[in-house]
């Protein structure tokens, strides 16, 4: 349980990180809360670790043009304390306390969580629910990808081994924004067996633009589109029934697909109640 040998370099800037990533078998090191565990277990054996922790300017949370932009190196704990996140990205604020444990949140980064793309992780689902965007820099410059196109498969994203995720952007919440978040985990801080991140807009006493992103059910966050339509119609139980069409839960070590399908319905009822309430 010790890492295999590797070389290490501190990137001074994003451009320098991209330059270092040209080395074969190089990996970016951000918070390291997943990567270093895999190194310790020798599940990954890179030739070079490119440490991006000292790159300045990537740890900012800014509101601009109606969006909240969260730099890749923002730590979960920093986001948890952020007034901007609480105000303008309340869905992310609800999800953050569920991520790992305090010591993990002190070190783990928002960018790292997205780039690692664990299927049971909270933030990827939040960014999909919010219709966010991912900023990427690679050898050919900068590009922006929609969250739903970013997550390709199990631990697989639109990032190539030569790319770096530099920021995520989600639309800032308005007075009519409604959000909901719930998950089942065996213990506080464990990866979720099933979770649900949701947002909507209040439309009088009803909801519109409902977006539901389940996690822990498949290879990537999954939208439940028929259930979204049912919630717009105010039909929560119809939404629960619609999940049978929307979701194909896979078995994992924690729960069978039947258990997960049942829990997905329980979460939908809970989250629907949250979506019905104005933020306090």
């Amino acid at each position, binding site marked *: 349980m010790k890492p295999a040998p590797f070389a290490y*370099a501190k990137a001074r800037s994003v451009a320098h990180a991209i330059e270092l990533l040209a080395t074969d078998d190089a990996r970016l090191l951000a918070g390291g809360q997943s990567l270093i565990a895999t190194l310790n*277990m020798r599940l990954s054996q890179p030739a070079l670790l490119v440490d991006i922790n000292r790159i300045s300017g990537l740890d900012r949370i800014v509101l601009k043009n109606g969006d909240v932009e969260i730099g890749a190196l923002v730590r979960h704990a920093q986001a948890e304390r952020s007034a901007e996140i609480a105000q303008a990205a309340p869905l992310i604020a609800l999800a953050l306390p569920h991520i790992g444990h305090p010591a993990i949140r002190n070190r783990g980064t928002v960018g790292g969580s997205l780039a690692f793309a664990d299927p049971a992780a909270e933030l990827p689902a939040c960014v999909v629910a919010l219709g966010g965007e991912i900023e990427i820099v690679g050898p050919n410059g900068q590009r922006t990808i929609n969250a739903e196109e970013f997550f390709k498969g199990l631990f697989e994203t639109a990032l190539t081994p030569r790319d770096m995720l530099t920021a995520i952007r989600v639309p800032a919440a308005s007075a009519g924004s409604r959000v909901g978040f719930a998950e089942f985990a065996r213990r506080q801080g464990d990866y979720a067996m099933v979770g649900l991140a949701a947002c909507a807009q209040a439309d009088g006493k009803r909801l519109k633009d409902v977006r539901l992103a389940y996690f822990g059910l498949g290879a990537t966050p999954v939208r439940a589109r028929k259930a979204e339509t049912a919630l717009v119609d105010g039909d929560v139980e119809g939404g629960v029934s619609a999940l049978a069409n929307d979701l194909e839960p896979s078995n994992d070590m924690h729960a069978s697909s039947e258990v997960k399908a049942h829990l997905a319905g329980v979460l939908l009822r809970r989250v629907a109640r949250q979506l019905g309430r104005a933020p306090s």
Partner: protein
Amino acid sequence: MTERFHDIAVTVNGEEVRERVDARKTLVDFLREDLALTGSHVGCEHGVCGACSVRVDGVVLRGCLMLAVQCDGARVDTIEGVADAEEITDLQQAFVARNALQCGYCTPGMLLTAQELLAGGGVPTREQIRAYLSGNYCRCTGYQAIIDAVEAVAQARAGVKS
């Protein structure tokens, strides 16, 4: 510089330390093997158990999920330093008084994590204490006595009678 070995300068428990480290060495192994600070324990080595908790630049982290080479220029405080500074004497005494440890393997991590929670001020509820300590595993006492001890210190520090 894309080398395997690097020179680092770290302030450990207030003393500057200069060492040459292999990039693959984790912070907790560096503390234990190179500096003989064996109060930080090695448990699961993948970030689950919390036995390796140390403070880096003022926040409690997993010593197994940070590399020593990343600590160049950082301030690292271990259970030895925090205990010697008498920052957690009341917590240590409460752990003894309530039998909040048996084998003691998890205790350094429990103390550092509890101290981080209490340093935030106020008297946390038992639920909040449980949630904050959720990443620190104890395999012998169960958690009841640990929560009791942390709660008692929180109340004592806030001047609340328990």
